[in-house]
């Protein structure tokens, strides 16, 4: 059996049981080796940087998570899985998980539909729509720290803008202690998050809407479809890839939420707005229990990784045809 009959990619060392290759095949192999060398040459600098700056720290965090370690020198006090056991017995961390879930759920149920509705509205011919688009997008451009300081002042109990405004229109009853109230802090925080991020999702959705060919909506119109039917059966399915990305970003963002919370509440009052990242920061940089903090970051990494892979595998599959996570051969 001559090697030329085999598909190209099978010509590896393991198939060298076949008769000595012809000189033509040898030449091709040499060419391919050179080609491969060039590719590697170009990739090495990037791979080294990626390895040193991304992979190594991740691996080291995983390693450190099995030690009791104060963060200086090398970890030496091996404690096995103790940090993880402690983690999943800590009511604060379990609360972090619950709050993460809560934020994801609220984002999906309230924030994304809101952004979608705005995107649809601003995709119409509205007077001054460019101004609206810019205004709605503006909060996203603002830094998280500034947003935090701003809203901490707006929601200052009693004397902040929010309470003043509610008082002016006779709705004092709706005011409250906002970030200072353990029962209200998550709702207030979600309000700020929505303010901050809805513009970004609106922009994503707008871009998605604009890539839908007009002819399709027109055809539906000619077929006698009403506005809801056109939205439900034409726009929504064609917008689905964008929505899937939007959901993905929302979830990953909620898992890693840190800066807003840190600036506004530092996780308080009494842990009621603490997120995994805030807990990790507290242990790593305030208490210098870096081993335990590493365990938290490993769990965060695990949750993000599992979610990202599963989501890409099962939800984004059609959108990412041929990308790394689809286990099918590259040729298909």
């Amino acid at each position: 059996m001559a090697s030329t009959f085999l598909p190209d990619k099978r010509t590896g060392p393991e198939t060298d049981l076949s008769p000595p290759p012809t000189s033509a095949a040898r030449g091709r192999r040499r060419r391919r080796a050179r080609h491969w060398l060039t590719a590697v040459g170009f990739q090495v600098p990037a791979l080294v940087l990626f390895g040193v700056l991304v992979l190594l720290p991740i691996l080291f965090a995983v390693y450190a998570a099995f030690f009791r370690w104060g963060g200086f020198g090398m970890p030496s006090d091996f404690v096995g899985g103790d940090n993880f056991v402690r983690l999943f017995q800590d009511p604060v961390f379990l609360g972090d998980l619950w709050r993460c879930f809560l934020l994801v759920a609220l984002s999906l149920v309230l924030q994304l539909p809101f952004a979608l509705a705005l995107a649809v509205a601003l995709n119409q011919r509205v007077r001054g729509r460019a101004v609206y688009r810019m205004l709605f997008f503006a909060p996203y451009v603002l830094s998280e720290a500034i947003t935090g300081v701003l809203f901490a002042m707006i929601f200052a109990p009693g004397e902040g803008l929010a309470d003043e405004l509610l008082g002016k229109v006779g709705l004092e009853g709706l005011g409250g202690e906002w970030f200072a109230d353990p029962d209200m802090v998550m709702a207030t925080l979600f309000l700020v998050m929505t303010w901050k991020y809805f513009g970004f999702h609106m922009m994503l959705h707008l871009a998605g809407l604009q890539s839908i060919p007009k002819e399709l909506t027109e055809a539906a119109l000619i077929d006698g479809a009403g506005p809801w039917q056109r939205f439900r059966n034409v726009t929504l399915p064609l917008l689905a890839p964008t929505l899937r990305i939007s959901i993905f970003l929302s979830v990953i963002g909620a898992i890693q939420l840190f800066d807003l919370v840190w600036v506004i509440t530092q996780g308080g009052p009494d842990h009621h707005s603490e997120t995994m990242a805030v807990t990790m920061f507290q242990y790593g940089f305030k208490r210098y229990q870096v081993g335990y903090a590493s365990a938290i970051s490993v769990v965060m990494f695990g949750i993000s990784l599992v979610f990202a892979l599963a989501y890409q595998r099962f939800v984004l599959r059609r959108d990412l045809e041929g990308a790394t996570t689809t286990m099918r051969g590259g040729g298909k």
Partner: protein
Amino acid sequence: MGDPALSRRGFLAASAAAGLGITALSACGGDSDGGSSGTTTIEWWNISTTQPTKDVWAALARKFEKQNPTVKIKIVQLENDAYKSKMTALTASGKLPDIFHTWGGGVLEQQVDAGLVEDLTGSTKAFADGLLPVAKEPYLLDGKLYGIPFDIGMVGFWYNKALFKKAGIAEPPTTWSGFLDAVSKLKAAEVTPIALAGKETWTGMYYWAYLAMRTAGIEALAKADADNDFSGPDFVRAGEHLTALVDLEPFQKGFLGASYSTPTGQAAAVGNGKAAMELMGQWAPVVEADAGKGLGDDLGFFPFPAVEGGKGTITEVFGGGGGHALRRGAPQAAVDFLEFFASEATDRELVKETGVLPVVPAAEAALTDANLQAVQKQLKGTTGFQLYLDQAYAPALGQEINTSVGALIAGSKSPGQVAESITKTAKEEQ
């Protein structure tokens, strides 16, 4: 006022970022050992990054150089948080600067245990004996002196005399039950009794720390740290006394989300006359005037009341200050500088220009502010001293005390649970 304690507590993100920049720069700094020309260069690491202290200290260094032509002083200034992390790294590497800022307590002890700090007991005896005894407390370990103070301060109640008068309180309370009584009177007069920055849990920790000092005593606090056991009945009782206060609902509206030094925070509430008092260190008047309007002559100071039946007394203080330590084997010029910095002339200037409290008794005359004089008087009559818990204890333990006392004030932990979780962290850390 460039009070180290103030900057230590104060401004998080922005200042830390600025400090990190300096850390990066200073990492490029070279060795401190003398050149070949016969001059000795000593490195002086401090945290006086704010004015006017920064300039005053730089001028003092020049003055010392003039008096000692063969000595050059290289000043390295780091912002508070950046300094702490840099020093932790240096301690691990085993090489400290010639002269460095220290708060004493647990961190200094670690550095001493690692054999990195010069014992100053003998070399500074000539001038250190004359310093205010309480100011040296944080740097005394096993009877040996490892640091020379330039500042000392303490925590106590800062109160609004006008509001106290309005509520019919003639004299500041001296007992805990009298204090609770005063709180009730203020409430009855529709005055918010106490401002508290619940978001920054260290402010609540002050109450627990003082109550623990008053009920269990200072020695019990040291013993609890050594034994990793805070579960004794006296510590639970301290929590119960605090619960009694919390149950009166004495704090301002929304205190759980309040910061310390922001315009809507604890200091501003007192400074603007919206709350009658706060438990805070000697820097309180400055921050009250900075974040709010300030109270002027209406501001008064009284020590934390004694607790009936407790083992502590009203003359024991909770506080801390700032000082300088030397690396082991630092040149004689560094000792000379410490002497220069703790001289009466220097201390007068520091008191006058940078607002610290005098550590040289003779420099007292430079203290003109009536409130700071009251603090000074209390410090002079001190019968016992407890360093800030987050400096006296390991970081994890200090933080756990802050958070669990915060939980007690928020109503989610009982006094017993507070003692329990502090003990648990202490045991994990040992």
